[in-house]
């Protein structure tokens, strides 16, 4: 499978980037690490006539701690995130989520912004042009059917990002360039929950950075991912959690976000569940009750939807336990 022809531009500033892309009647794509876009182009699912690389633009890279916030440039690679001791120490869910992406060679090129803004996936969609040829095009491919949910009236493709749920559990926000509206958007608000067009951002916008409040010592985070193999694989279900403890190891707050459960990551309102109990005596049975009863999980990833639905509470619990154990550890130090 070969890449189709396209023109390639490497602007030096954001202004140049927007100017270049405006000239191109909308059939252009920004390129960061390319680990999502290039395979889609090989499959004929994205057919831009122009690629505008963001790599030479200064100021989009780097990790800094400033005034209680971690500021991370959108073009920072996953490798740089994994190597950062600030992130692994205070924002471990992000570190862990980055390490859960694909495999080490991918970390070297894949970027934070690109990972967040990856396309939703489906076994009926992420296939070569030849594979899709005799099948009626699905919603996401511009047609009117869903092969995953045969009577479905919408697209059931799955958001499979690892990083976004971690950022949601960490209360992060994204800074956006190229949009008329507000330049800072809460992570969860980036997602439209529509498989056809999974982001609320307009097409020719760029996430320039991520801003994460650095938690105090008593609050820590964790990420748990269910997948077939420990490398390469996208999540079948994943969860990120932040847990705050008081000095007696009693939970004072839990934030939980799920991924690979539908077209968008989901922030879970725990409704007080688990709060006020000691972590070592916590009863997780109530967790099932606060998890969404109606997800958009279908039979369109490597393992059946029925199995993935059962795993929601298991993986959510694993993420919460990881976070809580880390918070408890910090306490005793």
């Amino acid at each position, binding site marked *: *499978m*070969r890449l189709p022809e396209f023109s390639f531009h490497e602007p030096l500033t954001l202004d140049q980037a927007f100017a270049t892309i405006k000239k191109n009647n909308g059939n252009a794509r920004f390129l960061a690490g390319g680990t999502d876009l290039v395979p889609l182009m090989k499959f004929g699912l994205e057919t831009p006539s122009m690629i505008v690389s963001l790599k030479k633009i200064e100021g989009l890279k780097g990790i800094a701690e400033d005034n209680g916030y971690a500021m991370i440039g959108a073009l920072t690679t996953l490798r740089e995130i994994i190597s950062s001791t600030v992130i692994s120490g205070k924002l471990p869910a992000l570190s862990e989520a980055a390490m859960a992406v694909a*495999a080490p060679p991918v970390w070297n090129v894949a970027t934070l912004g690109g990972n967040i803004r990856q396309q939703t996936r489906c*076994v009926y969609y*992420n*296939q*070569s042009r*030849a*594979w899709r*040829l*005799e*099948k009626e095009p699905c919603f996401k491919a511009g047609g009117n059917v869903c092969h995953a949910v045969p009577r479905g009236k919408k697209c059931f493709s799955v958001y499979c990002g690892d990083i976004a749920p971690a950022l949601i559990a960490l209360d992060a926000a994204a800074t956006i360039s190229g949009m008329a509206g507000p330049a800072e958007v809460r992570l969860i608000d980036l997602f439209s929950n529509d498989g056809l067009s999974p982001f609320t951002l307009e097409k020719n916008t760029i996430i320039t950075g991520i801003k994460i409040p650095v938690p105090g010592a008593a609050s820590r985070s964790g990420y748990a991912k*269910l997948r*077939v*193999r*420990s*490398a*390469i*694989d*996208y999540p079948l279900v994943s969860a990120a959690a932040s847990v705050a403890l008081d000095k007696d190891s009693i939970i004072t707050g839990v934030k939980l976000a799920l991924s690979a459960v539908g077209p968008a990551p989901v922030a879970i309102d725990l409704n007080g569940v688990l709060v006020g109990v000691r972590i070592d005596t916590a009863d997780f049975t109530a967790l099932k009750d606060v998890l969404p009863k109606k997800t958009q999980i279908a039979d369109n990833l*490597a*393992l*059946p939807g*029925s*199995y993935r639905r*059962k*795993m929601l509470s*298991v*993986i959510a619990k694993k993420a919460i336990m990881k976070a809580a154990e880390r918070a408890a550890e910090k306490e005793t130090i």
Partner: protein
Amino acid sequence: MSHAKYNVINTHVHNIDGVAKVTGRATYTFDVKLPGMLYGKILRSPHAHAKIKNIDTSAAMALPGVKIVVTGKDTLGVKQGIWRRYEELCDEQVLPLEKVRYIGEPVAAVAAITEEIAEAALDLIEVDYEVLPAVYEPLEAIKKEAPTIHEGVERNVNVTRHIEWGDVDEAFEEADYIREDWFKCSGQAHMCMETRAAVSSFTPDGKLTCWASTQSAYYTQGLLAGVLGLREGDVRVLAPYVGGGFGGKFELDAAMFTSAVMSMKLFKPVKVCFTREEDFIASKRRTPMFYYVRTGIKKDGTFCARESRMFSNGGAYTGMGATALYLSGFFHSFPYKWRGYRYDGYRVYTNTLPSTSMRGFGAPQAMFCSEQQIDWICADLGLDPFEVRRKNGHTEGYEVPGQAFIQSCGLEQCINEIEKWVKSKGKLPANRGIGISSCGFMSGGIFNWFDSPYSFSSAVVTINVDGTVELHVGCQDIGQGSNTTMAIIAAETLGVKVEDIRVHSGDTAHCPADLGAWGSRQTLMAGNAVKMACEDAKKQLLEFAYAEMGINIVYDLDIKDRWAHIVARPERGLPYVDLVKKALRAKDGQRIMGRGYYTPHRKGMISPAYSYMMQAVDAEIDPETGKIKIHEVMTAHDCGQPINQLGLIGQLEGAASMALGYAYLEDMPMEDGKLMNPNLVDYKVIKAPEMPEAGIIEIDTFEPEGPYGAKEAGEGLTNPTAAALGNAIYNAMGIQMKELPITPERVLKALREKKEQEAQK
């Protein structure tokens, strides 16, 4: 058994082509580029079953840069197959004339000046299909009302195979306990690093040269000649480096065929390389099998009888499937003595990707069923699974009635060693278990369905003036290291060093014919041919040494480590290189040349020798997710005398990764005949984090039929693993896994059912 001390055999010898490979200098077919070469692409059927009413190639031909478009009508329309002796099993036109029988089947091919143009031209070929009803599963396809896939083939039954010995019914009568089970074994992709690829160049002198990614240059030569109407001798097949085969690359493939057909029409070289997706959807696969197994046993653990029925999903064509059908049934009896044994195998055509041989050749499926059922029977009767295997296992001198004669057998030692290893592990934590499985495998097949008039293996050795050695062999190195193994055998036999040997292989014009790399045959068969050739050359050299040294004929001479000497008085001799020079002079300048060959005779129905092994898999199950973690794989292995020490370790580890992949990760799910995961994100081959420690305990035996006592090593190691994992899960969780692959949701389902059953009690 005491062994002679060897200088080269079983020492630490690096792969002789290792440097070329790791520095990127090795020329694979993919790397071949010839002047004026065109690039070919194949148009494939999107339908599982359809009549080809018309193919309009005019628009594609009109595309600038396109040089030719061919369809079945441009070929001789030969129905070919590797079972050449049996016309009814030659059922595949590589470019079919009348109908397509699976999704991905080639229907036309294009050659153009670039790959991009060739790909674009595929879109311009108009095929008018009449879609026919299709059937995908063997148990459906065998029904009376199922659509007919091949005209005249009743109930779509492609081949049947009956194996029987002893009085089975009487033996069952003697059994105190009879157990029956159904199993479902999945398919598996060969997943060679190098996809199917060929470069064909037909020249005006009427000769064709074809570089091909093949497991047997000789088979490719014969098959190409057959479908192209050429003499075998006018077809030269070159396969200098091959990136893996695993049983999937010794039939004629569409890259070989379409490149040759187009080159013959254009008198230009044409290259066709499959994409990874093409390799997945259209290069055959491990045979999916449904097994019914009924076993009768006495209270004391003595096996009485076994009766099995197997239905395999043959897919659209025969390929090597007929052999897999036989071998699965034969190895299903392995490695035990049954008073009565009966197997009925049915290979059923379906409208899916054809199935064929793959590492283990039907045995991994057979063992998955047999070895698990034996453990369950042991549990049912309170018997020790080690003891039962020991009691019933093959021994030296045993004859599998009418099938095989066992000359060397280290099974009992294998069982003893693994028993010790398992016991040394002590009590395991919760949700963790060790499972065992024993098996054996062939050292090359005795069958000649290809109808080769040549001996099964041959070798020619020539000695240069400086003592360097040219070794010409027909056996095929496909990455498994056979060239290194042959160099080791040659160096040992001639008494020189490995670096003195240059191995020539993978060229039908310059190397003697050999059936190639399949069925674990090369170490034994080609190894015997190489040994014979080198002994022949050495004998000639030593004749000159006798004359030169003027010694009493009661002494015998040998060469070791480049020193020709009296065996009884090793200090008396002369340097090998001096001897070579003298011999050359004495022979009027003719180089010393030795010839060797091997064809098995009077060795039963299957193979001249059998390897034996027992494997243990240590696995842990997450009871919440059903996920499996493999901690360790340990194998006690009798391959006779190991020849290529590092190669053997590589084979062991490679087999463990492939067999574990088959056991719990790899699957080929289809919807209406369409493969759902034809890419390396969704097809789950094992990755580094999943790869456990794989250890080996070598069991010393000596196989009289093998070179230096060697027999099979490598392919058979894929046989026990799925069963051993199943048994590990059974020991850890008490659940019986009857379907492959053992996925997390199947584990959870079995756990849930067990809980429900316990609640009912």
